[in-house]
């Protein structure tokens, strides 16, 4: 074994992993190259586009700008962890599908993770909350409108459900 490697333990989408990595590996590289979870995308490499957003301990973070070593002992959720294993989409994924909230789909995993984290944190986000919390996710295809509508639809459904 390469002596420069270090071992970390991380739970990804509920499954525990023990991996031996070089310290310079980013969380994004860990997910894509080591664990084969290629749903998380890389589009800028300088912490500006949000395509690589994943959830670490309930918080949305950009996987390109977090070292894999820093998630040792933490729980990571990626886009692959949103739907159930038997093929049922999450409520948010359903809403994205219904509202045509994506086009090329390259930034969609990042958007889904940001909005999933937001909807877990905020029970009843306002339009402003939603827009501000989605500032970190760049999109070139959709013009954002249908994607924001999908999120609002989930909020609306939740409100009705709680009545």
């Amino acid at each position: 074994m390469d002596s420069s490697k270090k071992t970390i333990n991380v739970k990804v989408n509920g499954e525990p992993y023990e991996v031996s990595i070089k310290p310079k590996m980013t969380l994004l590289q860990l997910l894509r190259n080591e664990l084969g979870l290629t749903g998380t995308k890389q589009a800028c490499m300088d912490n500006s586009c949000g395509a690589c957003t994943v959830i670490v301990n309930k918080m949305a973070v950009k996987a390109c700008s977090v070292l894999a070593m820093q998630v040792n002992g933490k729980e990571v959720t990626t886009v692959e962890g949103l739907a159930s294993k038997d093929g049922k989409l999450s409520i948010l994924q359903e809403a994205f599908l219904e509202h045509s909230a994506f086009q090329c789909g390259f930034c969609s995993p990042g958007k889904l993770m940001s909005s999933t984290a937001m909807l877990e944190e905020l029970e009843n986000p306002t339009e402003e909350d939603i827009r501000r919390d989605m500032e970190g996710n760049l999109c070139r295809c959709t013009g954002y409108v249908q994607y924001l509508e999908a999120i609002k639809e989930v909020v609306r459904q939740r409100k009705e459900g709680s009545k």
Partner: protein
Amino acid sequence: MKDFEYFSASSLQEACSLISQYKDVGKVLAGGQSLITLLRQKLISPTCLIDIKGLKELDFIEFDKKSGLRIGALTTHRAIEKSPLIQEKYNVLSEMEKSVASVQTRNWGTIGGNLCSADPIGDPAPSLIALGAKIKLVSAKGERAVALEEFFTDYFTTIIEPDEILAEIQLPPPAANTAVEYMKFATIEAGIKIVSTSVAVTVEAGSDVCKDAKIVMSAVAPIPLITKKAAEMLKGKKLTDDLIEEAAKMAASETDPTTDVHASAEYRKEIVKVLVKRAIKKAFEKAKKA
């Protein structure tokens, strides 16, 4: 990215001893929200990183009526933004934090890391300086407290010694009849700030007279810039629209911005005039009510 050795400190004490050991070749890693980009671009290639992000003892927000607010250096931007305590007592910090980068960056990036990276377009420093912040620097040899306005020396450069760690930020209790206002100017809403400013105004109770003022700006100089002459013009005077406009002009003359892809130096000065004017007015109105 070049290979490096990695140490994760489990206590502040261990962190101090690690960096005193590796101070010549190591870098301290907190949230890494700008550091990792620099590493990836191979602009810096330290042989070891000392990761302090996990230090719980530097992740806190505490308030005491007498001594004021203490924020641990490893408190995330998001925690500051969302803290009910800060929203109530130092609302400008919460408002300012909403404009720092993106939610993802605020979730992982720390206030201490932000200050130590000393990017002159950073937002937190001007607001904290306007609020009268001090910082605590610790090393294996001991600790020292410094006014935040004396912390920065040049682009991306501070007075921090290679074996020191920024441990906490201290703010005095909110002053009476005082308001601090943050204002930014960027082409797109969440874009690179062309100018941003934080203005503190204290009024004589029940009057229109300015007792004290502080105007701090980012993106117009190599460091967060305090425009002292402009603030001086306001002190002891009744704040009229004309005076405010004159002070804003003075503030612009005190800046030394550069031209870049986002704006020319001349335009930045024009924006300083507008932004400072608007911020003073707003802070003034609020201070009268405070």
